[in-house]
């Protein structure tokens, strides 16, 4: 292996910012520098680049087999996505037969080897290729910022469906609506909404500076920065600041950390080692951040404004009961299911307080 292809495999046991590069030890023993000393380092043997030339298809096959041998999840998808990306495509299917069967240049082959070696450390494909798609957007990805899940695409559809029914969101309309996103991560939800609704404005928050930076970067790449404000705020600690910066908003949307603390340890390595645990851990019952959002919602929302949240499948009935007792001004509207049929999304609406409602009826 030449010097450029050196990659260090770093086991991210401590939640440090992962803006550092990943380099792997081959069969040499090069000692870690001082800055790496607090990370556990594991040696790995990555396959040597073959002497002769190979085609893309052969590389796909080679790495699929190698991932399988090493117990890497989704060996064929990993191999295909990475190699398609190196060849400038999003999927292997979109590449012409000719390109798949012609020999890779030395440079391309080295790039394939470098990226596939990263995947050996169980780094998620999205971090290996530093991008992923969400609906019709391509977003930059960077550890440890949370990678958007396919379920969340449907959360956006739910919000869009409702917003399109409101006057003032279509093209040429003059009313300007605002939505607030709590826990924006890479910016997937907010940017998706902004892309689809030219009149919408969005405010996005995250407690992670890395997430704030990445969302800002994605907004600039998609030329949506004019309609998006991103703030480094923690909904748990900075509630007052949050309330002061947002006018009443029509939509409050969130994919908050909702995993149960006890489930964190059994997460697959792709998630446990590389993604920000603060974006996942929702406390003992997974409802810690959710409850805070719901408590603040009536003060953030305009009348009849709505909350849209992605949650754990066990949460909807618990949330319904809890809101009934604890948040008088929020009415539970409905539970929606995701594409796998699991209860996944809670929709609530700001209504008059129950006491006031009763007075109206008299």
């Amino acid at each position, binding site marked *: 292996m030449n010097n450029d292809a050196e990659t260090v495999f770093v086991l991210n046991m401590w939640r440090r910012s992962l803006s550092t590069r990943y380099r792997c030890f081959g069969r040499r023993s090069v000692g870690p520098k001082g800055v790496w000393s607090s990370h556990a380092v594991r040696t790995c043997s990555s396959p040597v680049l073959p002497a002769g030339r190979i085609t893309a298809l052969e590389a796909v096959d080679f790495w699929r087999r190698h991932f399988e041998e090493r117990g890497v999840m989704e060996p064929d998808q990993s191999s295909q996505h990475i190699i398609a990306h190196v060849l400038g495509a999003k*999927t292997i299917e*979109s590449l012409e037969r000719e390109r798949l069967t012609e020999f890779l240049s030395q440079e391309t082959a080295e790039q394939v080897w470098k990226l596939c070696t990263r995947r050996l450390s169980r780094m998620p494909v999205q971090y290996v290729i530093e991008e992923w*798609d969400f609906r019709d957007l391509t977003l930059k990805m960077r550890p440890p910022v949370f990678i958007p899940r*396919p379920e969340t695409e*449907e959360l956006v559809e739910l919000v*869009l469906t409702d917003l399109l029914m409101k006057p003032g969101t279509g093209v040429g309309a003059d009313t300007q609506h605002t939505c607030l996103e709590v826990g924006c991560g890479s910016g997937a939800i907010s940017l998706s909404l902004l892309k689809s609704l030219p009149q919408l404005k969005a405010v996005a928050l995250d407690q992670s500076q890395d997430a704030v930076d990445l969302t800002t970067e994605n907004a600039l790449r998609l030329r949506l920065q004019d309609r998006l404000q991103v703030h480094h705020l923690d909904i748990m600690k900075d509630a007052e600041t949050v309330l002061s910066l947002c006018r009443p908003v029509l939509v409050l949307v969130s994919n908050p950390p909702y995993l149960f603390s006890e489930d964190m340890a059994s997460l697959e390595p792709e998630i446990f080692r590389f993604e920000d645990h603060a974006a996942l851990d929702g406390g003992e019952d997974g409802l810690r951040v959710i409850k805070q959002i719901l408590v603040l919602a009536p003060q953030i929302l305009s009348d009849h404004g709505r909350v849209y949240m992605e949650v*754990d499948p066990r949460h909807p009935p618990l949330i319904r009961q809890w809101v009934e007792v604890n948040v008088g001004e929020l009415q539970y509207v409905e539970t*929606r299911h995701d594409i796998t049929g699991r209860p996944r999304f809670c929709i609530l609406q700001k209504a008059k307080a129950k006491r006031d409602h009763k007075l109206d009826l008299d």
Partner: protein
Amino acid sequence: VGGELNPAVAASVQRTGKSKEQTYEEFSPSRSSRVLWRASPGVPPLLRPPAGPTCVVTAGKKDLIDLPALVEDELEEQFVRGSGPGGQATNKTSNCVVLKHIPTGIVVKCHQTRSVDINRKRARDIMREKLDVAYKGELSDVLVKKKESMQRKQEKRRKANENLERKRQFKEALAADSKPGNDTV
């Protein structure tokens, strides 16, 4: 991952119309990955293709074809996310959507893009084309357009070959004329 519907389960899979809450049935727990056939009611309106004429892009040209509308009641959709709660707990890149049209048994698989949402939409577009062919056979506009496109290509090729042949003959004639002994200017 098979996905064949167990008859007992199939019978209990709900296919209600506009109900807001869909139910799902789980296969036997012995399966290593959880496969759920989800009834498609309650699909957000944006996902449903329009009932009227649809633009179908063929060979770079857009033709308006009247494709059959899809009735979500008659569809079953499958997307595998493994066992467990899914969502934040899983990070997989597989995004293959399988769509089944119950009355005809036609199955469409789509993993053309890295977005599940777009794959779902495309699966529906493809399903509409397949249904058109299934219902109308040779008369289906989908097949007619394809045939026309192929014929156009063949015609183009034939003309190109003819031109090449004419050029070749011209060159040969030119070479014969310019041999020594000729007095042409």
